[in-house]
């Protein structure tokens, strides 16, 4: 897979467009999570518009790659991505969190096709992804399974039960991506319940570990390609991100974990995002 300069520019543009969607959706909904979704825009753009082998018009296509979102509260970015990829009409984004909507406050498999599994309760996405990857192995299927997790949810024991299992079973058709944004609800992860050295922990459990700048699409894509090439081990990509990325007053603030912007704040947020003209600077620029 070749990521051309032109394609890369497009992906950055898409990522920023997704951020605008997230702001608009949350403002309309009047509740929901801001920081996580904004921080993961590049990862979602890269996954759905470059990496994944999928058919938005045929969401149950058996050979599709699976992407499981474990930290369901960041679903605004998932919904925006699915809509922009063509899974459902864009105008439906405005129904987020409303009665009768397919866009439930936390993603529900039976409500919206394209959502691979239900999540929101933290810590059980990796286990489910393992089940999906095991099924592929049993069936001799070639699809790859990805799971997106948050850093905070690594405080759940369930995560480590799963990490241990995937390591033992050498699930090389499984790739985990961690949103390492250093925040959770009650504060910074290292204050609430330290996770470091995260890299060493995964390594000790038999995983291949790659650290990347989660806002650098080139670097992220290279890591995913490496993950797919590694035999005999599952890979975890620790994507270092800035929570609230792209909106100055949200960046790095855990207080923005679980609230939406007010109308006024949304105006300012959209102004900032648009000024970037579809280009979020990465360290390598």
């Amino acid at each position: 897979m070749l990521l051309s300069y032109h394609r890369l520019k497009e992906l950055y543009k898409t990522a920023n467009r997704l951020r605008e969607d997230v702001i608009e959706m949350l403002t309309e909904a009047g509740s929901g999570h801001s920081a996580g979704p904004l921080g993961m825009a590049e990862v979602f753009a890269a996954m759905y518009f470059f990496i994944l082998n999928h058919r938005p018009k045929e969401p149950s296509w058996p050979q599709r790659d699976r992407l499981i979102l474990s930290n369901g509260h960041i679903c605004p970015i998932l919904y925006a991505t699915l809509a922009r990829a063509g899974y459902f009409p864009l105008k439906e984004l405005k129904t987020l969190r409303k009665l009768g909507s397919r866009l439930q406050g936390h993603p529900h498999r039976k409500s919206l096709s394209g959502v691979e599994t239900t999540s929101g309760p933290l810590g059980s996405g990796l286990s489910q992804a393992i089940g999906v990857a095991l099924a592929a192995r049993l069936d001799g299927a070639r699809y790859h399974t990805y799971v997106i997790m948050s850093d905070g949810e690594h405080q759940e024991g369930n995560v480590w039960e799963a990490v241990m299992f995937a390591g033992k079973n050498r699930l090389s058709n499984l790739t985990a991506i961690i949103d390492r944004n250093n925040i959770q609800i009650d504060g910074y992860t290292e204050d609430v319940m330290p996770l470091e050295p995260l890299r060493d922990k995964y390594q000790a459990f038999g995983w291949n570990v790659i650290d990347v700048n989660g806002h650098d699409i080139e670097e992220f894509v290279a890591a995913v390609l490496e993950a797919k090439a590694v035999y005999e081990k599952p890979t975890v990509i620790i994507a270092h991100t800035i929570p609230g990325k792209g909106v100055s007053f949200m960046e790095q603030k855990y207080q923005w974990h679980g609230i939406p912007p007010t109308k006024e704040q949304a105006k300012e947020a959209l102004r900032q995002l648009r000024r970037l003209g579809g280009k979020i600077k990465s360290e390598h620029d």
Partner: protein
Amino acid sequence: MLNLEIYPNHKIFDKDPGQEALRDGYGKGLLEAGKERNVVVLTADLEESTRCQWFKKVYPERFIECGVAEQNMAAIAAGLGISGKIPFINSYATFSPGRNWEQIRTTIAYNDANVKIAGHHAGISTGPDGATHQAIEDIALMRSIPNMKVVVPCDAEEARKATLASVFIWGPVYLRLAREKTPLLTTPETPFVFGKSYPLWISKGKTLDVAIIGAGPLLYNALLAAKELENQKIKSVVINLHTIKPLDKKAIVDWAKKAKAVVTVEEHNVLGGVGSAVAEVLAQEYPVPMEFVGIKDVFGQSGKIYELWKKYHLDVKDIILATKKVLKRKL
């Protein structure tokens, strides 16, 4: 009419009866409970939304942050509880007692450890977060564990009193709390006696047509229904069954004898909740026709509290309908 003996909120039937969230009442109760020096408070990355931060500010040395780890929190609390402490554990009810049920069952209840479990954001009224965060099974989960006591307060004021009372009740207690602001039904003067129900409303006259028995904020709808039923010459009593376990069996049987028909009201699955508890008693001691207002064994969804109450048939008109149905079945 309202039962004035229990000092109800006189403004209940006003357009604005005054509203407060149960979790706010809980937070205040917890702060008061802090005067007892063995009280310790644990949370799993939810100090603000569970209102523990008020306790934390005053008693930081007795506040324990567990991170997102409900199972660990429950078992740590068990250890504290068997060592002379009175721990309160705090998370959303879907996760505690949802995720950590077995830790609660064995390490807390079987040990009879002195742990109080605050299940926050219970019921579908949790709202826009959707079904993953709407506990509709927690009463059943907790009621079925030996040694566990279960309290479902009807408003913020009662939540405050129940929280405080639980400090002085030995052993595991489950407190069911809710997220959204709901009408105040009681006042600081209203007595709260653990295990003892009381009528919020008794229609005038010597006879009764129906006993509406419920728990939690939905009792507000029950009161509005009772008032409307009285306009239609149907006489009712509305019982606040705040303690689901141990159950006030005598009162349930007495009211069933008087009314000869019962409607139960709860923001919980009708399987295993308040209605089930009432039915278990009446089936054995004094069977009468019953109707259950509650969630009919389906998951909730995103929405606003009043939309969801309507959608899931927990509204005033649903209680009236249930009453008419039960009256038709009366012998």
